[in-house]
């Protein structure tokens, strides 16, 4: 409840773009967000094309996107938005919250995920937390991240700005893997409760940046992309 107080004092409202093809789910999401005073709906669309059109007009603060869209892949949309470089938090909507789908979205540039059947309260809570710098995570995603960043050896000279996990981030991830809650982790590692989710968000950012530059590098090398803009 204190979180809400903080935000209210800041008097900020955040614009949200919802991309969800199923009408009932779309309605539910829209309702959940409009109920809270800190969110305004920038647009509520059902297809990629509509989403792109909306994005061309204005960039929202938060993008809520479903992966299974009728005229395209949500992942592509996420990537386009993330590449814009401006501050847009992308949250992907998933039914299962399973590792495969979430990771694909994270690699594309998403910084959070949302379970489709979350309650209205949880939806708003999750989006707010995302804006405040925290991201949700599950033990299996944390394990994947540990493995993924562990595989990288010394930074390759080609990729500039490649990041590895800090010691703290690694500790946080390993405790998440064991199933500890944010609060428990904060007390175990003697850090404030708010730091834990922000660590997660940073880790997600590293995952996305890493993937993107890697993808670009490979694309350039295989001749798919030419720098003639």
């Amino acid at each position, binding site marked *: 409840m204190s979180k809400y107080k903080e935000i209210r004092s800041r008097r900020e409202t955040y614009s949200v773009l919802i991309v969800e093809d199923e009408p009932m789910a779309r309605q539910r999401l829209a309702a959940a967000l409009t109920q809270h005073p800190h969110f305004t709906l920038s647009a509520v669309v059902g297809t990629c094309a509509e989403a792109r059109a909306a994005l061309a007009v204005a960039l929202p603060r938060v993008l809520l996107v479903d992966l299974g869209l009728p005229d395209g892949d949500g992942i592509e949309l996420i990537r386009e938005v993330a590449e814009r470089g401006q501050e847009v938090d992308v949250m992907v909507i998933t039914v*299962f*919250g399973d590792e495969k789908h979430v990771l694909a979205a994270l690699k594309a540039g998403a910084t959070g995920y949302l379970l489709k*059947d979350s309650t209205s309260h949880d939806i708003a809570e999750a989006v707010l937390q995302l804006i405040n710098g925290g991201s949700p995570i*599950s*033990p*299996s995603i944390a394990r994947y991240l540990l493995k993924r960043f562990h595989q990288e050896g010394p930074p390759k000279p080609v990729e500039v700005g490649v990041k590895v996990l800090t010691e703290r981030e690694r500790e946080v991830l390993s405790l*998440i*893997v*064991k199933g*500890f809650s944010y609060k428990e982790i904060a007390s175990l590692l003697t850090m404030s409760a708010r730091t834990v989710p922000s660590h997660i968000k940073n880790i997600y950012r590293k995952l996305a940046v890493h993937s993107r530059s890697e993808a670009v590098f490979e694309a350039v090398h295989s001749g798919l992309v030419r720098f003639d803009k």
Partner: protein
Amino acid sequence: MRYGSRFVVCAYTFAFVLTVTRGGAERAEMTPLTLTSVWFLLAEDEAPPADDLPQWQQRRLPDNWNESQPGVGGNGWYRVDLELPQIPERLWAVYLPRLRMNAAVFVNGVFIGDGGRFSEPIARNWNRPLYFHIPAGLLRQGHNQLHIRLRAYANVYGGLYGLRVGPDDTLQTEYRWMAFLKTDLNQAFMVMTIVMALFLGTLWLRWRTDSTYGWMAVTMLFWAANSMHFFVRDLPLSTWWWEWSAQVGTDCFAVLLAISVSRFLGLRRPRLEGLMAAYVVLTGIVLSQVELDRMLAVANMFHLGAVATGGYMVALLLWASWQRQFCGDTVVLTVGVVVQSCLGVHDWLLQLGLWQHDHWYLMHYASPLLFMVFTWVLTSRFVQALRQSEALNRELERRVEEKHRELEAGYRQLRELEQRQAVAIERERIMRDLHDGLGGHLVSALAMAEKSTRVPDLERILREALDDLRLVIDSLDSENDDLLVLLGMVRARIEHRMTHAGLHFDWQVQDVPPIPGFGPEMALHVLRIVQETFTNIVKHAHARTVTVCTGEGQNGDDHPAGVYLEIRDDGQGMRNSSHGRGLENMRYRARQIGGTLAIASDTHGTQVRLWLPLQRVA
């Protein structure tokens, strides 16, 4: 091969004919003088006897003692007068093309050379020309006298068969040529035959199936040993033994050759061969009782047997050639054996004294040719056998490979079947769980939807259904081999519900070692146990704190090391046995994954403890 062997036969025959005609009979007219008019005296003297002895007889060269003095052997002297118009300027020499057995030459009373030992065993120069240089100053203008001491046995065709005197440069070529043909060539043939014999012998040692190789090797070695008679001069043993071995050796060689030929044609005639062997033994025994002066005569009778053997060989080969439609190898061999046999007969007749003994022994020149042909044929036979076995090997290898490929294909099919079966089993498992878990939820939800008044519960049921589905999917994660991650996922899914029910987690998990065989199946069972436990707590326990801990531990004294998972609550305990079926289900699941489930409950709370072994028990 056929053309090659025919060529060899022709070439050799040509060379042979050339040799024979060239050296067969001595040429009479040349600058060197051929002296034929001689005086002869039989005396044991070692120095030229005096001229005026009355025993001097007049003779003519070639002088065959078998005719001029039958039955008489010993030490003899020849005296020859040589008239020279002037003292020769160049070096002169005395050349004795043929003699038997040993000679010494004196010019004008001065000894100029001899052919070896005059005492027993006498040096054998019967097949060896002798050549002596006349030292300068020995020859006089006008009358010169030559004395030649000759020693021979009786009845062995001893005597002096030629005498030439002349300039060294012209005479020497004749001598060299004769020496080559009679001595060097025979030595070369012997070495060559030994080499071929050793080669064939080696082949036989490696390939015992065909005895032809062995027999031929023995025959050739025997012949090689026998051929020493033609050029060995100084004997290691007594003349009698040497002569005996020469005669018996010839018969033995004939028999060996006949057996080799039989084997070559693939025939075995044990009785006939036994007879031939007996004949050779008989020859040996009989001849051993004969004195040297009668030996040749007796041996000649036995050589009839050798001639007969030769005839038998020829007949055999002719019959085989006809049978095999005159195929190359057999024909060539037949020709070789025929030539050899004819020459053998020639030698026999020669030894009988048919000609005036100015012919040579010829058979031993034909043998090397025969051996070469034999060796060639046998080697190509061997090579062919090798090739056949190689081809057979290749065929075998090919078949093995074929079978191997068939087997591999069979295995692949088997593996595919196994894979499909494994997938089918897994699919069935998942379907069963979905049916029991999710299916059950949805059916309840449906029932509630029909009674549309109970909407909040519908929501709960549906939410629970979704959580359940997520749990199942989590369990299917193929990378999930960690109990702690699984528990973490469960907490993430369930925490909401627990908080809603006023419960709070005390998360006391510790790292545990990896559990063997922890796959989707085991994970799902554990999940269901945990889920059931949590559900019970939420529904019945009226508790505040749920403690979850894991660790390594034993489950009693007789249990090996394992991992435990404990869920404690501080509720009111299980009062009634209404949980019976649920608990039974949990225990069943624990058993399915090889572990145990212990439940303790009192008024202060309940403790559910799942224990899994660290060692896979079959």
